[in-house]
């Protein structure tokens, strides 16, 4: 398999997934903010909260309309660029994807329609219920997708069938309640809530800096600050839980993102900064906080976190065992009733994936030399430098957002928020940060899984379809053009309506009312 084809296919999936994920977190976060705003309206009967729900709902609607179906290009790629992957694990991977489409997407879309068009047809409480169901549908969509993704990180509830040459589902509930998937879900949706909160906070801060629609902006700012503070706390706490899960299921990822080349006495320290020397498998210097990594990764003070050298040693043994699994599989393919082959396969099947790592370096796995086994061992790890720095960017931004929300919340309690222009300017400049953090988070999660599409089961290099590189380059250019167009339209409409503000509702209560503008343009 050509390395350039594998890299191009990976690049295409990464680019399209990351473009798609520019739209998703805002949708996830805004739905719950709308629930909060509308709940306050129902409880207090103050019309300003209805206006808030309708105005922020309009911006949410722009994002949803442009973001919906952008995930379809990813589904295209499963069939075209990743056909072997789809064959090998489609039995498991396809189930949550189908459930997402059937259950969550239709629920979400139906109630989004009602949210926009049923303001005058439903009672206040009924409309609030619609908004709540819209938020639940949106989050259910994320749940099923992250169950599929969590299975790629930590495959459970399935086993390989040598006759059909594919993984088959053995326990749906194990897939559904996969701890990795659950941790990923809560961490990801919390990141979405932070994104929605920063969006509302930043635009409200801009209105306050301009001194317009002050009462509307102050209330929006307060709700975003409170919701954002809770979300930022939960994203950090749940990220810690994610780290613990990573420690259990994907020690490789943990060792890579901590640049832990050699074993360290428990509890290991968390590196803040380091100069990574990949060529010599060491850090030239490092600054660390004692104990923290050990506590996050193991929840104990005396349990060691496996280092890169230890994991590589472990992988070497699994690759050797995997060669035996491939040999037994060959025998079973020749004679499915071969009892000795069946017994050998049962003994080594958990390492089959590791044996397949050798296919990058040798045509016949059973003929691998010691040097080729060493190549496979080295390739069983993602590159440490990008993992190390991406993780630190993500965590650094997460704490910066927590500080912003804490100060913003405090300011709404203690003083008038508009009296602190430095805080408002800070909030405004932080607007792109949650998107950057989410994208970097995805990078840590997905790049950290390399060289696997399904961790320990199927190497990425064997998952790719045999396409021409020209075809992949062509579709890559097409997809990038498609997403860029959508992004430009999204930015244009978002900036336009955010600038116009709640006056676009035409209630007569805010600046930039359409009637006033129209009169001005006629004059």
């Amino acid at each position, binding site marked *: 398999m050509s390395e350039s084809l594998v890299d191009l296919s990976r690049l295409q999936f990464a680019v399209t997934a990351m473009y798609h994920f520019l739209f998703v977190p805002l949708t996830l976060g805004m739905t719950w903010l709308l629930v909060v705003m509308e709940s306050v309206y129902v409880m207090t009967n103050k019309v300003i909260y209805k206006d808030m729900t309708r105005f922020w709902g*309009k911006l949410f*609607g*722009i994002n949803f*309309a*442009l973001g919906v*179906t952008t995930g*379809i*290009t990813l589904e*295209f790629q499963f*069939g*075209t660029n990743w*056909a*072997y992957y*789809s*064959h*090998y694990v489609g039995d498991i991977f396809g189930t949550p994807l189908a459930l997402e489409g059937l259950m969550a997407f239709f629920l979400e879309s139906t109630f989004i329609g009602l949210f926009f068009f049923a303001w005058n047809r439903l009672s206040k409480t009924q409309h609030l219920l619609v908004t709540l169901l819209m938020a639940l549908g949106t989050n259910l969509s994320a749940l099923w997708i992250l169950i599929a993704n969590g299975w790629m990180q930590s495959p459970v509830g399935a086993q390989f069938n040598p*006759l*059909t*040459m*594919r993984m088959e589902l053995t326990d749906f509930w194990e897939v559904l309640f996969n701890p990795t998937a659950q941790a990923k879900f809560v961490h990801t949706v919390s990141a979405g809530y932070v994104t929605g909160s920063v969006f509302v906070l930043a635009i409200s801060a801009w209105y306050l800096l301009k001194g317009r629609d002050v009462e509307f902006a102050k209330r929006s700012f307060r709700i975003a600050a409170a919701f954002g503070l809770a979300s930022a706390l939960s994203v950090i706490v749940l990220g810690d839980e994610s780290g613990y899960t990573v420690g259990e299921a994907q020690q490789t990822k943990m060792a890579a993102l901590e640049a832990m080349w050699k074993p360290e006495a428990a509890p290991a320290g968390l590196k803040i900064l380091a100069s990574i020397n990949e060529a010599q498998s060491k850090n030239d210097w490092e600054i660390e906080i004692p104990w923290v990594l050990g506590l996050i990764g193991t929840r104990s003070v005396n349990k060691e976190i496996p280092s890169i050298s230890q994991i590589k040693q472990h992988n070497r043994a699994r690759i050797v065992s995997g060669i035996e699994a*491939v040999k037994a*599989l*060959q*025998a079973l*393919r*020749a004679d499915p009733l071969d009892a000795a082959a069946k017994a050998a396969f049962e003994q080594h099947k958990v390492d089959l994936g590791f044996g*397949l790592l050798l*296919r990058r370096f040798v*045509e*016949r*796995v059973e*003929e691998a030399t010691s040097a080729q086994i060493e190549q496979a061992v080295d390739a069983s790890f993602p590159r440490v430098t990008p993992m190390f720095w991406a993780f630190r960017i993500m965590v650094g931004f997460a704490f910066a957002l927590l500080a912003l929300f804490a100060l913003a919340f405090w300011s709404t309690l203690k003083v008038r928020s508009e009296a602190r222009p430095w805080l408002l300017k800070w909030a405004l400049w932080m607007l792109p940060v949650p998107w950057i953090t989410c994208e970097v988070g995805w990078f840590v999660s997905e790049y950290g899984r390399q060289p696997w599409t399904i961790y320990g089961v199927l190497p990425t290099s*064997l998952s790719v*379809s*045999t*396409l021409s590189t020209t*075809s992949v380059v*062509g*579709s890559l250019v*097409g*997809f990038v053009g*498609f997403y860029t*167009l*959508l992004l430009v*339209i999204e930015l244009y*409409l978002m900036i336009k*309506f955010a600038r*116009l503000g709640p006056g*676009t*509702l*035409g209630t007569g209560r805010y600046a930039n009312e*359409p009637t006033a503008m*129209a009169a001005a343009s006629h004059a």
Partner: protein
Amino acid sequence: MTHLDRRLARQLGLAMLVKLALLAVLWWAFVRPVHIDVSAQGLSARIGATPLQQGETR
């Protein structure tokens, strides 16, 4: 519904139509022509699990 809302609805409707058309074009150009054989035999050969046939050398 204000005139701004009506214009926004038109713009979003148009964007959705353009999006669906572009997706159809992308599918027609890059997805429809691709047919990958994903039989058990094909995958077996790909991962090197196919036993050597008589006369084949390693």
